[in-house]
């Protein structure tokens, strides 16, 4: 405000060259309304100007794909004429400013994306990253972000069935709050957002429009957070899940009654982006009368109305003859609805106020003509991230397991997920902690017999990606697929959110480039298409960038919910086996972090084909009902996986680690080393023996007792009573967040 010397376009985040291009496309200087609209549509958040070229590498075709990137959410076929629509999105910067409302509105936004395609939302997952919990700010952010997610999801009646949570120093200044939503629809109900039919009416419905988040897309989402954060605060948006619940039911009823030509949610950049994208997809134009938009605050300027990010609003295109019926359905749901414009064949977005044209732009210029930039990737010559702080001294494996189980990245997530309703809608077959993936019932195709289900998981360890952007991202995709395999599900599609620092910096460009390459290769290797996603860049604070954090969400299907896998050891006397092409290694592991070791430059090589093969074998065994438990090996390696299997089922285990050395680094590596492709399985011995013909599988022990006991070389044993393991694992997070 004080800095009047800055040209308006620069204050709005446009470069001089971009501004000149706008002038060229318009054939004149833009007025204030047009400039504000261009600045939003040409922001990183809306135009993907630093990532679009890269995203082209991702495979977007697959046998189950129904709707790929480009719509509000992608969708896959789950059989019986049903589709699952899903997408993940970030709300990082708003959550850093106001964590409760930022996270809440993040959930609200991703739910709107799902019901905008005509799907009834059936699940939410959250993916969270904060600084270490010994910082008061991180505890505050965690508590309020979790509170906000629960508030929104619980109140709207959509279960939050899973998620992930990591604490690492580089997120201290810049937390990540990503939310994923899934919805269900019949194939023929999937709705697209293209505006068609000149003369059709544009109806805005939902909450009133206020001065919320004005400038949010360009200011909040596309600039690094710095000292001036306080100025950005008046734009805080308040989530109203009650309004969204009505909006959701209303939207779904409008679609059920086939009253709509197309439907679109209002997210970042509000009316500007929703209307111009509807027009662009339909290849048409729109006239919008801003003076008809119902306002929450008097005296709003046309540009404010066009860029307001007030939540809980939708836009639809309706044939003139059906407008009254649409308004009646909205009235039934106590949802304000107003005809605010018309579809035209002009190819222009015109903004009118009091009958006067106050903005007039070619739709194509707004939506498609933002220049796309090439990244200048360059591998950094020196480490970007400082070594984690050392918190574990010595190399006693007994202490190490307890320290790992109690560490914030590994400890029981119950204090967080208990704040979410995971049951509403009566579909939840596997709740958090029951299994590696959440499992949801699909409607029964017939009265008798098997009930098909879907499984979903969300993963991505930023620290592993920071060590090796390519392999770390491959691991994230493989981990998601492994989680699905453990419940017996076959992956159908994947969504992702790319959370990175400033892409204009060569080392960040390199991370982004390598990560997308890894994701593309992993998706191809698994034959899983990318159905959509989101990119969040400029996640940097004064102390540097976040860990590069591609978050991957994957949806799969299993034929029989009754056989969905579990992770806990279930029956005393069952055999325990390690399976899969797992090569444990300590650099970059959770143990290395606790020991304060610097991040390695690169992770060890992966045999993706062998990992895929192991996942398929595990999945089929789970589906045949032959395994009593299946759990993949991730943070904390085999020892942590074993402890989790014990605690999950309430049974101890005796496991033979002879050959791993009795002490020293080699034993630590065997027990706590990490890598992709490992599973801990339990079941009747003959069933496991049959698997050994198909994949690498070693019998290692037996379920039973009330301790986890490991036999080491020379007959030494390591033993932890279950109660000791449980208390370490339960206290880790509970102590930190109270």
């Amino acid at each position, binding site marked *: 405000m004080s800095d009047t010397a800055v040209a308006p376009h620069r204050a709005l985040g446009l470069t001089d060259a971009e501004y000149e291009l706008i002038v060229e496309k318009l054939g004149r200087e833009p007025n204030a309304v047009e400039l504000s609209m261009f600045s939003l549509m040409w922001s990183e958040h809306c135009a993907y100007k630093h990532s679009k070229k890269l995203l082209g590498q991702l495979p977007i075709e697959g046998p189950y794909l129904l709707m790929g990137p480009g719509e509000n959410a992608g969708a896959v076929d789950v059989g019986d004429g049903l589709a699952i629509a899903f997408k993940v999105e970030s709300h990082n910067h708003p959550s850093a*400013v*106001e964590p409760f*409302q930022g996270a809440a509105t993040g959930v609200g936004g991703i739910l709107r994306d799902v019901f905008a395609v005509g799907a009834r939302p059936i699940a939410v997952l959250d993916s969270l990253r904060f600084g270490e919990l010994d910082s008061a700010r991180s505890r505050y952010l965690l508590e309020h972000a979790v509170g906000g997610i629960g508030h929104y999801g619980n109140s709207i009646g959509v279960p939050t069935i899973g998620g992930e949570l990591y604490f690492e120093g580089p997120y201290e200044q810049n937390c990540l709050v990503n939310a994923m939503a899934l919805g269900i629809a019949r194939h023929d109900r999937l709705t697209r957002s293209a505006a068609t039919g000149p003369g059709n009416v544009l109806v805005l419905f939902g*909450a009133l429009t*206020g*001065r*919320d988040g004005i400038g949010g897309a360009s200011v909040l989402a596309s600039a690094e957070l710095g000292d001036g954060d306080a100025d950005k*605060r*008046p734009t*805080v*948006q*308040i989530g*109203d899940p*009650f*309004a969204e619940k009505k909006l959701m039911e209303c939207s779904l009823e409008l679609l059920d009654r086939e009253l709509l030509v197309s439907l679109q949610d209002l997210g970042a950049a509000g009316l500007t982006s929703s209307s111009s994208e509807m027009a662009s997809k339909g290849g048409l134009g729109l006239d919008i009368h801003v003076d008809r938009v119902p306002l*929450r*605050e008097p005296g709003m300027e046309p540009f404010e109305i066009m860029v307001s990010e*007030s*939540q809980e609003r939708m836009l639809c295109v309706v044939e003139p003859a059906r407008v009254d019926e649409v308004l009646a359905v909205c009235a039934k749901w*106590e949802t304000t609805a107003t005809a605010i414009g018309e579809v035209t064949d002009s190819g222009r977005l015109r903004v009118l106020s009091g009958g006067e044209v106050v903005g007039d732009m070619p739709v194509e210029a707004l939506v498609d003509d933002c220049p796309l930039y090439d990244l200048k990737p360059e591998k950094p010559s020196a480490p970007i991230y400082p070594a984690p702080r050392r918190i574990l001294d010595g190399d006693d494996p007994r202490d190490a397991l307890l320290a790992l189980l109690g560490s914030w990245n590994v400890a029981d997530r119950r204090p967080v997920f208990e704040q979410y309703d995971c049951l509403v809608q009566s579909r939840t077959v596997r709740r958090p902690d029951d299994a590696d993936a959440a499992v949801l019932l699909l409607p029964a195709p017939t009265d008798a017999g098997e009930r098909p289900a879907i499984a979903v998981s969300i993963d991505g360890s930023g620290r592993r990606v920071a060590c090796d952007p390519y392999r770390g991202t491959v691991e994230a995709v493989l981990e998601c697929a492994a989680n699905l395999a453990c419940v017996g599900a076959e992956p159908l599609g994947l969504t992702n959110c790319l959370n990175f620092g400033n892409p204009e910096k060569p080392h960040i460009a390199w991370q982004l480039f390598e990560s997308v390459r890894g994701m593309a290769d992993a998706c191809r290797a698994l034959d899983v298409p990318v159905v959509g996603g989101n990119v969040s860049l400029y996640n940097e604070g004064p102390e540097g960038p976040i860990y590069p954090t591609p978050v991957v969400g994957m949806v799969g299907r299993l034929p029989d919910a009754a056989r969905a896998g579990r992770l806990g050891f279930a029956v005393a006397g069952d055999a325990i086996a390690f399976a899969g092409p797992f090569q444990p290694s300590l650099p970059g592991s959770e143990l290395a972090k606790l020991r304060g070791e610097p991040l390695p430059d690169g992770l060890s090589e992966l045999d993706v084909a062998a990992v895929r093969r192991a996942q398929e074998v595990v999945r089929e065994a789970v589906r045949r009902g032959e395994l009593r438990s299946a759990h993949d090996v991730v943070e904390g390696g085999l020892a942590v996986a074993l402890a989790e299997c014990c605690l999950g089922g309430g049974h101890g285990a005796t496991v033979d680690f002879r050959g791993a050395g009795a002490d020293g680094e080699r034993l630590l590596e065997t027990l706590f080393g990490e890598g992709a492709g490992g599973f801990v399985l339990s079941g009747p011995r003959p069933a496991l023996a049959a698997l050994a013909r198909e994949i690498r599988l070693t019998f290692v022990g037996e379920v039973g007792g009330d301790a986890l006991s490991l036999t080491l070389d020379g007959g030494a044993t390591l033993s932890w009573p279950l109660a000791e393991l449980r208390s370490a694992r339960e206290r880790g997070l509970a102590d930190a967040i109270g």
Partner: protein
Amino acid sequence: MSRRVRVLVRPKAGILDPQGQAVERALPALGFDGVANVHVGRLIELDVEDPSRVGEMCEKLLANPLIEDYEIVDAAPAHGG
């Protein structure tokens, strides 16, 4: 001796107030017409030894200055202290 202080916390002007809206909608149905501009906030009452620090308490804990305004009102001296 400590004083009883009353803090009124309300949504900042222009910030969405879903609770206020819900109450405003409910009242006419109960036969109360002629009601407008309803806002719902929080009331915090406390005995403090040093009333001069209440403003700071509001900034740090009692209110969320991003989205809420607060007002400090003196109540009667606390009984019993």
